[in-house]
């Protein structure tokens, strides 16, 4: 803020990213876009190791949102794989939020674990690999996957489109 009597200085363009938060990018860094306010309050759920309960909740909401059964199964598998990473790597409980409107259902999972590999889940691991299948599977199953990881932990948002334009499973 410019104080009274002070001339406003033009900030060189190169410094802009330092003074203005970057616009949200779906495939990169920066904050996740706000959850769709039209979708109403998200359902919130905290979990430690009760993944079966998580799967039951996701399936119930997926069906309620109108997702076809094969894709509901896909979403359940995807959320379970992400939540399994919480059980494996995070030392604290995870949280799941679900919301939907007439266009899509979104499941957001947050835990205190940190993903350091920027390409996590983008490459198919060999069947001999000891791990790494989880996030790859998630990327195959969901219409869109957004991952943010940093000192505050990891947030993963999984999107499944609803309606006639939804990708077939």
């Amino acid at each position, binding site marked *: 803020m410019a104080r009274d009597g002070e001339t406003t200085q033009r900030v060189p363009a190169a410094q802009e990213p330092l003074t203005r938060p970057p616009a949200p990018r779906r495939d990169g860094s920066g904050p996740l876009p706000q959850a769709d306010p039209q979708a109403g309050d998200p359902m919130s759920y905290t979990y430690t190791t009760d993944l079966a309960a998580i799967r039951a909740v996701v399936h119930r909401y997926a069906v309620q949102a109108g997702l076809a*059964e094969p894709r509901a199964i896909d979403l359940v598998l995807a959320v379970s794989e992400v939540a*399994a990473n919480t*059980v494996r790597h995070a030392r604290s409980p995870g949280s799941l939020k679900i919301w939907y409107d007439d266009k899509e259902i979104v499941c957001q999972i947050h835990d205190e674990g940190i993903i350091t590999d920027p390409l996590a889940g983008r490459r198919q691991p060999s*069947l001999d690999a*000891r791990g790494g299948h989880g996030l790859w*599977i998630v990327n195959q199953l969901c219409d869109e996957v957004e991952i943010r990881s940093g000192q505050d932990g990891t947030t993963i948002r999984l999107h499944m489109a609803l309606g006639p334009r939804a990708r077939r499973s």
Partner: protein
Amino acid sequence: MDLLTVTVTARESAGEPYTLVEIAGEADVTNTDELRRLLDEEVQQQPRTLIIDMSGLRFMDSSALHALLRVSRSLDRQGGVLALVSPQAAVAKILRLTTADRLIPVFDSVAEAAAG
């Protein structure tokens, strides 16, 4: 109720013995260690054929899949064979997606699997 139940029986088909393992419930990271331990015990018996009936398995995640792939590799090394039977939709999906179903044969019934 346990999330996962594993039942093992020794059987025979046309004079050939095989081990039948029935897995029912939901297999995920929270019970993979137990699943691996139970399957390892059977692998150590060096069966020629180990058949896993998955018809009662509602869900399987990638950790449980790793346990199965491990069994497949171990049996392969000792000259045995692993076969899977009747995966439900969610289980069939992860098998197909990871191409594990190209490595491990999948059958519609225990009889078919036993006949090889």
